């Protein structure tokens, strides 16, 4: 065991059992999986992406490239979980990734021996030919050999959530800068959200021996107690978006062994912040030297963190390799904690190392390392030569990179600061966001505290709040002393830059030699900086090496583009509340309960559910029900819920004039008590929608829209009223939901209607296209004599609360007359027989003339779309015009979407003359019929065309006929 006898923020009274690769271990409450593995001397935790090299824990945070595991079992299995951030819980089960058959003996390690052939660009150069092999052979083989964790292949059973939060100040990161910013803003009365990806507040304060005593805990407790401050632990701010919106992933229950029912495992937050402070700290960078990827080679700051926070010694003999003074702390901290330090190797000449029980080397580098599955020793080279030093852990510090990631999400480019040899964010890169502390390149604790407090005060003043003064504790203020050192130049072994993607210094050299010299090209050629860690530990070194090769400065080479998310976000949480019933709202009609009670299957129409047909006993196939319902309507009477059609109430002194402008036909001449069919065009001259317009009283109209276009038409009418003609005095509102409306259709419809209305209606009080207000079952209702079936028909409307009762009553009355309920299928058959339109025909590419409705564009007035509808290209024999089709062989099938050509023509695009939009079997005619758009179709009645369906039934010879198919004179409507 490598657990130190005392210290650490772990609860030694709470042992937690966990399994890694099947073996049982014990950790402590407060551990991460990584700290628990290290405490159990497990140093080999994974295999590398390409070469299957043994790998160990590199870091102590979310930048981890190596220690990725599959967490959980079966459907719960979560690949690529960072052991360095995963909290340990009792019963945790994790497995190593990308190895076979086991972590210790990985057969794919052969790749490591083949490394000379597997360098950057290898795939592109090798698997070029034959092209067909790529998909079938090369890619599957490569994918099996390389990669990360495996998906379970099962539906993720976890629950996820999404939520919104709002604040004056969002503080990202709870290190010294974030804590002082949040504390000052909180004490000043602002609404504050403090988010940190860790489960403990403090950032580096909990990782460094030089902490602030009890300050961190005190501040955490104070922030937790403030009602105006929300502390979000385990929450990573993943993206910065326009106008102060931030994305954040909260791991609600990832630290629990048992997740209680209804508890989301994670919540994705959209945080709306008037101001924000980025105090995300810095990520330490490794140094590339030969064989620098062995388990035991770690970041120096991480080694200090394991010792301080988790009381775990990552090694028994630790060597330190640094290019900066900060690295020295590792040696002093470890010795103070009782860990043996064998050597301190500093790349700089002429510096004076601190004194201690170690061998010191300056102007020295690590030349090589040894130990296949775990570090055994390192080879140090300085001016005097090389020597081996015993070390099972090497703590490496190549300096620190401020965490500028979020500041680049809106196209900001970071700026290079020579004094700290690192990129910092340009000011104002994200409007409303200020950067403080190490994230801004202020690496001392004192500077971080002061900056956090100062930027919070600025933000509050911006918002018109008064910041209270904040007392800050005494803190270290060591200046940054570093000298750039990216990689050990000459050496025999490979030196890794990107551990996760197995990119070495040599790969970058190859990319450069092969002219992939732009940093974006180099990234894609080598894969440096890709995958789950997005190059947090490797990007800067990669471009520094590229700069060196190109003889340029680092800022000249520039950075690649940081994009959200900062750390990986599961698709499951992005899809929270969007699965199953959450995908879209469902709208139910007033007749829904009565229809489902009759066993009607439902079909989606927009968001609505509508009854498709009403099966009766003995009917086993939908066509039987549909044909019966059509015959029932045509022979007696049928009832259908048409509540879903959009209904818009339009009133005002200028309502009639307004309607004239939005409908292509004249509406101002419509008298009270009358209904008119209306056509709306878009301004480009194409048809937008059709419907009816009923005049209830002078200046008071109710217009209907198709079910699917109700929202679009409402927005369009509002656009016309507010944007085009604000001088017109007109008011409109949807009344779709107020009125339950039912079609009563068929020769016996009047008898049914007269059973429920008062006074009785006659042909003279309610002629075809009449409307009016009357009493329906004791309540005030509306009656319209309109028809979508070609039959004598009415639509009857009552307030929605009475819809269920009226529907049941109408159906019962119809049934007594040999009629009954009918659904969408029968409705569709009857409207095709009559050549009436739906959005299968009004699909946005058809004009009034195409539809045979040119007479509906009134000559005497202007309307939306009129001028453009008269363009020459929208008229004439080249246009595809609406016609009827019937199969020459009356038993043949027609299919919607089939393309039309001349008989015998080759079915290719250049021969195309149109297409079928709607088809059905007509029970009246005894064969299939279809509506189609056919080039110059109205002039081709009686001709034959062939309908070609590439997906289904091949070719059908059809006859072009006039529409409607039945009752062309409309005698049934008026009779």
């Amino acid at each position: 065991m490598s657990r130190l006898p005392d210290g650490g923020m772990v609860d030694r009274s709470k042992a937690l059992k966990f399994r890694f690769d099947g073996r049982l271990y014990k950790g402590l409450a407060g551990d991460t999986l990584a700290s628990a593995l290290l405490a159990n001397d497990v140093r080999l935790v994974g295999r590398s992406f390409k070469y299957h090299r043994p790998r160990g824990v590199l870091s102590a945070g979310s930048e981890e490239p190596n220690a990725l595991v599959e967490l959980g079992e079966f459907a719960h299995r979560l690949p690529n979980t960072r052991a360095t951030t995963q909290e340990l819980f009792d019963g945790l089960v994790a497995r190593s990734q990308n190895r076979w058959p086991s972590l210790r003996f990985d057969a794919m390690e052969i790749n490591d021996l083949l490394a000379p052939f597997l360098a950057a660009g290898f795939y592109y150069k090798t698997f070029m030919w034959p092209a067909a092999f790529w998909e079938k052979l090369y890619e599957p083989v490569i994918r099996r050999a390389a990669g990360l964790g495996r998906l379970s292949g099962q539906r993720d059973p976890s629950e996820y959530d999404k939520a919104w939060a709002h604040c004056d100040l969002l503080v990202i990161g709870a290190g010294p800068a974030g804590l002082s910013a949040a504390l000052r803003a909180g004490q000043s009365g602002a609404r504050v959200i403090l988010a940190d990806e860790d489960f403990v507040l403090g950032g580096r304060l909990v990782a460094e021996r030089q902490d602030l005593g009890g300050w961190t805990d005190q501040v955490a407790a104070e922030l937790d107690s403030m009602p105006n401050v929300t502390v979000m632990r385990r929450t990573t701010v993943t993206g910065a978006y326009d106008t102060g919106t931030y994305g954040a992933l909260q791991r609600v229950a990832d630290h629990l062994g048992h997740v209680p029912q209804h508890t989301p495992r994670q919540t994705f937050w959209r945080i709306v912040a008037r101001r924000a402070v980025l105090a995300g700290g810095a990520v330490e960078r490794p140094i590339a030297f030969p064989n620098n990827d062995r388990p035991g080679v770690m970041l120096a700051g991480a080694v200090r963190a394991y010792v301080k926070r988790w009381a775990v010694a990552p090694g028994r003999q630790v060597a330190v390799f640094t290019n900066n003074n900060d690295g020295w702390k590792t040696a002093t901290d470890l010795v103070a904690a009782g860990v043996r330090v064998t050597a301190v190797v500093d790349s700089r000449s002429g510096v004076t190392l601190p004194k201690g029980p170690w061998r010191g080397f300056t102007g020295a580098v690590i030349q090589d390392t040894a130990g296949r599955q775990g570090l055994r020793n390192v080879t140090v080279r300085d001016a005097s030569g090389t020597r081996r030093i015993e070390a099972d852990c090497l703590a490496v510090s190549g300096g620190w990179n401020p965490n500028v990631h979020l500041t680049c999400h809106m196209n900001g480019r970071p700026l290079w600061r020579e004094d700290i040899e690192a990129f910092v964010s340009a000011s104002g890169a994200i409007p409303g966001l200020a950067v403080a502390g190490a994230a801004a390149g202020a690496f001392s604790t004192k500077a971080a505290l002061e900056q956090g407090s100062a930027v919070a005060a600025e933000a509050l003043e911006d918002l018109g709040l008064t910041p209270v003064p904040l007392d800050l504790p005494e803190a270290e203020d060591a200046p940054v002393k570093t000298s750039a050192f990216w990689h050990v130049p000459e050496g025999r072994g490979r030196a890794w830059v990107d551990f996760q993607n197995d990119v070495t210094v040599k790969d970058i050299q190859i990319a450069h030699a092969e002219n992939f010299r732009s940093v974006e090209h180099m990234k894609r050629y080598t894969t440096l900086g890709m995958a789950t860690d997005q190059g947090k530990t490797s990007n800067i070194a990669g471009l520094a090496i590229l700069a060196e090769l190109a003889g340029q400065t680092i800022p000249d080479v520039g950075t690649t583009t940081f994009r959200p998310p900062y750390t990986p976000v599961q698709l499951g949480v992005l899809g929270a509340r969007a699965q199953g019933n959450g995908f879209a709202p469902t709208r139910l009609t007033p007749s829904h309960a009565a229809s489902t009670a009759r066993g009607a299957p439902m079909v989606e129409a927009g968001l609505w559910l509508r009854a498709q047909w009403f099966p009766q006993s003995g009917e086993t196939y939908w066509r039987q029900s549909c044909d019966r319902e059509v015959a029932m309507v045509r022979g007696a009477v049928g009832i259908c819920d048409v509540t879903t059609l959009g209904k818009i109430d339009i009133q005002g002194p200028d309502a009639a004039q307004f309607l004239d402008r939005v409908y292509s036909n004249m509406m101002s001449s419509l008298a009270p008590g009358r209904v008119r069919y209306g056509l709306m065009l878009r301004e480009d001259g194409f048809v937008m929608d059709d419907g009816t317009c009923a005049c209830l009283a002078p200046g008071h109209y109710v217009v209907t829209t198709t079910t699917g276009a109700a929202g679009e038409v409402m927005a369009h009418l509002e656009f016309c009223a507010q944007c085009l003609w604000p001088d017109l005095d007109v008011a409109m509102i949807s009344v779709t939901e107020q009125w339950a409306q039912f079609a009563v259709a068929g020769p016996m419809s009047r008898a049914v209607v007269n059973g429920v209305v008062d006074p009785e209606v006659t042909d003279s009080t309610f002629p075809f296209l009449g409307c009016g207000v009357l009493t329906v079952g004791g309540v005030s209702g509306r009656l319209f004599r309109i028809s979508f079936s070609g039959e004598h028909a009415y639509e009857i409307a009552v307030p929605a609360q009475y819809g269920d009762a009226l529907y049941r009553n109408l159906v019962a009355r119809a049934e007594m007359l040999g009629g009954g309920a009918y659904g969408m299928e029968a409705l569709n058959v009857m409207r095709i027989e009559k050549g009436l339109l739906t959005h299968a025909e009004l699909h946005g590419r058809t004009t009034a003339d195409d539809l045979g409705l040119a007479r509906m564009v009134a000559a005497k007035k202007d309307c939306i779309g009129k001028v453009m509808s008269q363009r020459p290209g929208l008229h004439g024999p080249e246009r595809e015009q609406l016609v009827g089709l019937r199969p020459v062989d009356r038993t043949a099938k027609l299919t919607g979407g089939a393309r039309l050509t001349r008989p015998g023509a080759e079915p290719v695009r250049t021969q195309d003359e149109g297409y079928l939009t709607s088809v059905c079997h007509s029970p009246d005619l005894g064969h299939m019929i279809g509506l189609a758009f056919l080039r110059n179709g109205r002039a081709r009645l009686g001709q034959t065309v062939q309908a070609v369906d590439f997906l289904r039934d091949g070719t059908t010879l059809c006859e072009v006929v006039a529409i409607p198919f039945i009752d062309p004179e409309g005698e049934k409507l008026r009779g």
Partner: protein
Amino acid sequence: MAELTSLPPGSGLDLPLQIGSAALAQAGLGACASVMPFKGQLSEVNTRLKSRFSARLADVGRSQEAAVWTCWMGRNLWFLWGVPPTRLAEALAGAAAVTDQSDAWAIMDLTGQDAGHILARLTPIDLDPGVFPPGATARTELAHIMASVTALGQGYRIMVPRSYVGTLVHDIGQAMRSIDAQQALS
């Protein structure tokens, strides 16, 4: 024929819904009418409302409890509860467009100390009492539905078009269960 029987929105749903400390219940407010003043008629409308019903249209973004509950519902649009729409239409003839909206909306009250946390799952607006105090009202998206949200003293009044009530109750219920479960974690 016999008189038609009435079904309120949400009939057949499991209401009221009580989960943990939160409750979702249907609010029966009775007759409701929309009022859209014609051009330049806002003060005339208020004058007539005051003399006939002791009411006036609420300010933009506000609702107002009096003899008549009025709620701002959008650009140039108010709803009034408690006056028969036909009477209101007569009273405001020539000054405003009035329609009957009594049946067009499902109205639910969500109460309990976590009501705000529950709605934060479903709506993008800021419900903090500092910016959305009792009486404040907003038209916004809620559970993907075009809704109206009004702050009450101890909860929120949510209105959605009637046909959406099943989705509304489903989605709010799911959020209530989630929040209740999360309360047990800490």
